[in-house]
């Protein structure tokens, strides 16, 4: 319990952001990332008041120590948005409750997340925190991403972005990883492919986001 509180406090102190998919009311979202040690999937629907409700599945597995997994009902809330003529900034938070396990021990699980991002049509920077609390274990993943669009594309064209990602996960066998990624956006779809380097060596990761 102490560990969970400490992690929660640390999380709150690192004023973050999580790139939560909060869309206009009545729009569904899918957000998933498959990583070397941390993977997750979130599916949900946005409602008025910049609130989204859905399901999330999270998995931390370093191959060392206990793996941590959780399946939760999530609620995401856009706290603040800045709309400028050529740019937009967002701060959103999220929380979830459900079932989870650390190794063989199963029980109630909860998640908290926060995301902040700023973007114009050429640049994007995002800070995301995702924490998962399960019986006798907790994990915190912090992600900082900076992206640049080599050229500007319209909504109905393929828009390429080049990102650099820096990620940190706590827990046994975890640590810092970083690497470049290529993001392609086309209408309602975002595909991401990245190569990350960590103490485990190089590994490929992939992500997808979509509105439907």
């Amino acid at each position, binding site marked *: 319990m102490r560990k969970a509180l400490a992690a929660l406090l640390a999380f709150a102190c690192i004023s973050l952001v999580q790139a939560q998919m909060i869309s206009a009311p009545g729009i569904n979202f899918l957000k998933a990332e498959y990583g070397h040690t941390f993977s997750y999937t979130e599916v949900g629907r946005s409602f008025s008041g910049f609130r989204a409700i859905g399901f999330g599945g999270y998995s931390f597995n370093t191959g060392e120590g206990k793996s941590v997994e959780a399946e939760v009902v999530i609620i995401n809330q856009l706290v603040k948005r800045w709309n400028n003529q050529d740019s937009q900034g967002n701060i959103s938070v999220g929380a979830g409750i459900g079932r989870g396990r650390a190794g063989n021990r199963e029980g109630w699980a909860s998640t908290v997340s926060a995301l902040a991002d700023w973007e114009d049509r050429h640049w994007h920077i995002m800070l995301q925190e995702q924490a998962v609390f399960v019986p006798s274990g907790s994990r915190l993943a912090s992600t900082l991403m900076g992206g640049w669009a080599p050229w500007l594309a319209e*909504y109905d064209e393929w828009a390429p972005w080049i990102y650099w990602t820096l990620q940190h996960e706590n827990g046994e066998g975890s640590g810092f990883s970083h690497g470049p990624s290529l993001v392609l956006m086309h209408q309602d779809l975002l595909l991401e492919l990245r190569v990350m380097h960590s103490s485990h060596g190089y590994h490929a990761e992939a992500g997808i986001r979509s509105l439907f």
Partner: protein
Amino acid sequence: MKKILHLCICLIGLTAIAGASPSNDVKPYPLDRCIVSDEKLGSMGVPVVFVYQDQEIKLCCKACRKDFDADPKKYLEKIKASGTDSKKSSTNEGQSSGGTVVKLTVDGLVCNFCASNITKTFSKLPEVSAVYVNLAAQTVLIELKAGQKLPEDKAKEIVTEAGFNLRAVTYPSESFDSIKETLKKNSK
């Protein structure tokens, strides 16, 4: 002698001022944006102001003057169309559009998901037949079904609920497709 000299200087000054100002026959520039780049006038420094064929022109910077000089006819037509649009817009504030095309300028429209959000939101409306979003111009172009109307206050409410700020609404007289093509060309 000194008085005559002062008088001459004053006369020269007045002549210069009169020459620099648009005459009464010159049509005033109707927009607060550069007709070439669509940038807000003043955002790139002091606007470039001149008169072309009795039309006052205001551009955001010197670079846009080159583009203007390359095809002045095209930009004069755009000014003419925009002038008509703004007049229509001002007479339609808070009322029905009375037309079939609505052009929204939206703040915060910067990425594909923003475009997707706003496209889906407007596409759901029963009175809307087509939606086109142009990110470069921060524009949402809406074609209404025959006989349908989209009042400005309703458009503002929808844009706000989708998470953006509505900056301007116009009701252009051109067709949906022709405006769409112009927006596409200008964003290249």
